[in-house]
């Protein structure tokens, strides 16, 4: 059967919704599912509900971090911690030079480990960047949950761009990337980092991408990737604009999208 001709009925569609949401279907099934969703409002609604549920879990289900004492408790219980103290005097005498090597390697490891710990402690304190990432992510999740992706729903950039006029003191570039596999779905206004921002909504396969854009005084920068609770975020600065792209797309796909916008934007 040709991939293009393969049609899915409602029953089959429902059976594949969950795997489609997780990007775990092969290309021909994904295409068929997509085609069916475009033509069937009931199934589309069911898909949105499923997507909302998934976003809801990711946003609200508590992730239980281990308490601090557990790592120590685990390390204490390992046999090495007991035996190394007991056995080391007996093992050591002849191999002086290697022992010194092992020791210095150990020191290197230990300092690397300490560095790792201090870096992660540093990361645990929310930086302004991290705070912003949280805001961007919250906005993306909210838009999925309440099915409020766009205020102006159009794939025509000549409709989307004028919609922002008069609502903002800057004018965003609006480009449709349908031919590259990222069709423009619409746009909305949002409020982030104490200012109005543009959100352009794109789609890739079954997944939404929110692209946040607002002016900045910062210099141009390369792509930076952040991962947060199953969502990927790519951010960069180009021509006086701050860009944040967020999606639950696979990281590679989102990077492709970001590079595309970076080139055309």
């Amino acid at each position, binding site marked *: 059967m040709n991939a293009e001709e393969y049609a899915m009925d409602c029953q089959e569609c429902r059976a594949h919704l969950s795997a489609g949401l*997780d990007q*775990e279907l092969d290309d021909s099934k994904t295409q068929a599912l997509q085609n069916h969703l475009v033509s069937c409002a009931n199934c589309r609604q069911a898909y949105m509900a499923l997507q909302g549920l*998934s976003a809801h879990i990711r946003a609200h289900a*508590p992730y239980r*971090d281990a308490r601090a004492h557990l790592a120590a408790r685990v390390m204490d219980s390992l046999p090495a911690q007991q035996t190394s103290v007991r*056995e080391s005097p007996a093992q050591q005498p002849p191999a002086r030079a290697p022992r010194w090597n092992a020791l210095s390697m150990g020191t290197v490891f230990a300092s690397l480990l300490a560095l790792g710990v201090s870096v992660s402690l540093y990361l645990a304190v929310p930086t302004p960047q991290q705070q912003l990432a949280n805001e961007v992510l919250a906005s993306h999740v909210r838009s999925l949950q309440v099915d409020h992706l766009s205020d102006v729903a159009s794939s025509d950039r000549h409709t989307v761009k004028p919609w922002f006029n008069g609502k903002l003191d800057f004018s965003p570039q609006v480009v449709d990337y349908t031919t590259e596999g990222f069709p423009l779905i619409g746009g909305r206004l949002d409020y982030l980092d104490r200012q109005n921002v543009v959100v352009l909504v794109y789609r890739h396969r079954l997944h939404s991408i929110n692209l946040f854009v607002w002016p900045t005084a910062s210099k141009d920068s390369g792509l930076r990737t952040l991962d947060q609770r199953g969502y990927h975020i790519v951010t960069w600065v180009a021509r006086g604009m701050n860009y944040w792209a967020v999606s639950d797309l696979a990281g590679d796909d989102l990077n492709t999208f970001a590079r595309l916008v970076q080139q055309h934007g």
Partner: protein
Amino acid sequence: MTEVEQSRRFQTLVLPHLNAAFNLARWLARSDQDAEDVVQEACLRAYKFFDSFQGQGGRVWLLSIVRNTFYSGSVYRKTQAQCVPFDESLHDYAGDMDSSASGSPERVLMQRDAARQLEQALEQLPLEFREVIVLRELEDLSYKEIAAIAEIPIGTVMSRLARARKLLAHLLLQEAK
């Protein structure tokens, strides 16, 4: 490899996944104390079998040991003894995700104590469904990785996750009523 080196390697490769290990154990065991016991036992096992670890995919490797430790241990037997078997046939939830109920999930999501309700609903899910939801939504693992951890075929991951989501939506709707 000396014991000291092995212990260092273990610290660098396995301990970074301690939070993931605890999170899974906590969702399975539903108590902090039991979860810590499971994680400690699992880490001991992981340390014992550390030679078989390839150095790649430490999180998946550790999670599969955590899961195994949980199912083979006393915590699991204890929870099974307390637990009334969940009879899916008694719960008619086929229509929950349909358009007929389309307004309801939104109403649920808007509730202020949505997080608490979600936690309760997740804890009510039968184990086999709860674990695939946790691995997929909280750990963001692929079906292949979940299949490796839960020791089931990928097709089963697919159908189990679909049913788990249906069931969870149903439980959330019930709580909202």
